[in-house]
């Protein structure tokens, strides 16, 4: 490393500096060029993520509204007020249910699907493309597809179940209009959306397991389940953690599926923190309270970042 920079400095150093002076020196110096090339990106991130983040902290401690020209520091008043409302408590509970149930389902289903896709078969590329669709298509538009499929009168799902004799004509569930069904529908759509990402990440992990390990296990006479739990799962567990981590973060902070399908209804039974922050802060104009609600999302992100860093460190050591 260092001797190479020395070579360059010796070669172009004195003469180049005499010719075009400082600019060349900067373009050649590893340190200065490094900083110069990095600075704009850092500046952008600081201005548009760092600054608004601190602003969010500040807002949450103030009494700002959309129209207000001044704001006053009010301490923890917003947090105290927010925590006491039943809507917030309900939303917090919903967010946790939404996150844990959908990610548990995604984890199990992605594992099954990834194992199935490890085998070669005809038309695999097409299957892969179709399975990836929900993740790749804009989620707000994919969710509208579900809105139509879950419609109270024209639901294709209900029609099909009736045709095979599971639902009678008078027992059609109103998927998005009844509390538990609405939560179930929202979770199902979110699983639909996250499954491709988790599957592809797991596939990457599965295909990185050395083939001889599988063969050795086969020679030792390990059956399917033993093989799965003693070889496959332990070896993909770090990559599985990454998949779950992203899934958790994307679910915990998401409001798109809920906004499109239920807008938090019926009676706030599918309201989550992110959507509640939107309805309070933007539509309700109470920026301070909205900011306070959205900051409840933050601890989960810190936890996720912490786990992520630990995995990254372990990978570096290995």
């Amino acid at each position, binding site marked *: 490393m260092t001797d190479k920079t020395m070579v360059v400095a010796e*070669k*172009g150093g004195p003469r180049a500096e005499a010719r075009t002076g400082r600019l*060349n020196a900067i373009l050649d110096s590893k*340190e200065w*060029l490094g900083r110069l*090339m*990095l600075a704009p*990106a850092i500046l*952008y*991130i600081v201005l*548009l993520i760092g600054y608004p*983040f601190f*602003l*969010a902290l500040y*807002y949450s401690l103030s009494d700002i509204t959309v129209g207000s020209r001044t704001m006053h520091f009010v301490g923890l008043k917003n947090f105290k007020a927010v925590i006491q409302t039943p809507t917030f408590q309900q939303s917090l509970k919903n967010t946790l249910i939404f996150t844990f149930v959908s990610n548990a389902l995604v984890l199990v289903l992605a594992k099954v699907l990834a194992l*199935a896709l490890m*085998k070669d*078969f005809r038309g695999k590329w097409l*299957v892969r493309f*179709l*399975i*990836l*669709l*929900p993740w*790749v*298509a*804009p*989620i*707000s*538009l*994919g969710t*509208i*597809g579900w*809105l*139509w499929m879950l419609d109270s*009168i*024209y639901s294709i799902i209900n029609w099909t179940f009736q045709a095979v004799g599971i639902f009678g004509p008078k027992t059609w569930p109103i998927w998005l209009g009844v509390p538990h069904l609405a939560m179930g529908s929202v979770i199902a759509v979110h699983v*639909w959306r996250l499954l491709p990402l988790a599957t592809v*990440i797991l596939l*990457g*992990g599965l295909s990185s397991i050395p083939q001889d390990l599988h063969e050795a296990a086969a020679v030792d006479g390990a059956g399917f389940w033993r093989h799965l739990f003693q070889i496959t799962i332990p070896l993909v567990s*770090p*990559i599985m953690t*990454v998949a779950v981590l992203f899934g958790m*973060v994307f679910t915990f*902070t998401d*409001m*798109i599926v809920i906004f499109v399908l239920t807008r938090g209804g019926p009676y706030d039974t599918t309201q989550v*923190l*992110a959507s509640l*922050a*939107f309805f309070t*802060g933007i539509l309700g104009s109470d*920026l301070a309270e909205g*900011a306070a609600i959205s*900051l409840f999302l*933050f601890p989960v992100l810190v936890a996720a970042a912490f786990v*992520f860093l630990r995995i*990254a460190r372990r990978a570096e050591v*290995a």
Partner: protein
Amino acid sequence: MWKLKRLGARISHFGIVAAFTIFAAFPFYWMLITTFKKTSDLLKTENNPFLFNEHPTLEHLRYLFSDTEYSRWLWNTGFVGVLVVVITLLLAVPAAYSLARLTGRFGEQFGIGIFLTYLVPPTILFIPLSRVIANLGLQDSLWSLVVVYPSFTIPFCTWLLMGFFKAIPRDLEEAAMIDGLSRFGAFVKVVIPISVAGILTVIIFTFTLVMQEFVYALTFISPVSQYTVSVGVPTFLVRGDVYFWGSLMAACFIASVPIAILYNFFVDRFIAGFTVGAVKG
């Protein structure tokens, strides 16, 4: 007996793959079918919805493109997408190179730090940003999105490109520098041309992120003519009690499937970005 068992395994494998494929793709298939059905056919509950009970129609497509602002939204999305791609490339490419080559061990740590900012979600930042955008006088303008979107495309793309640059053999740049190019010259004339694949990945990825973004566009923009596709369709076309399902499904299908096909070619690189570096092997 052995044969029978293998046949059973094959059938269950086929069943699993088929079930998942239907679960994933059915909504899109359903969008496509609905697009070409007459409204009277759609709304007659005694009709078999899987069949065309009346002749297919192009009426929904005509309505979508001539009587709604849909084509305007597509144009808006493209406009924002192109500008965000340009900004992202201008900032992320040099930053990634710097972190991969010029900043030593510190670069690795910093790279992870930048990547982690990608995890800070719009749902925390949109409230203060709405005020910032208003103060800048960008409210209701597509430019607000052009300014804000790079804040989530730059972190991810920098991280993705870092991996690309690290994979380039150092000898290439060193040879170019011995031939008299400055370090920066070597970056522009040697490193960038051989990183076309990486840069293309970043372009596609940035564009899809712009197409998918919902929260900021919903927050910053209220005039219908300034919407992007992902917000315009669910907020403007879905309203009131009368749903125009045919044109709605057409709108969803047209905006999701072509970009999905493009994205499909790059998905492996994109997944590598999620995991490589964090989990090696």
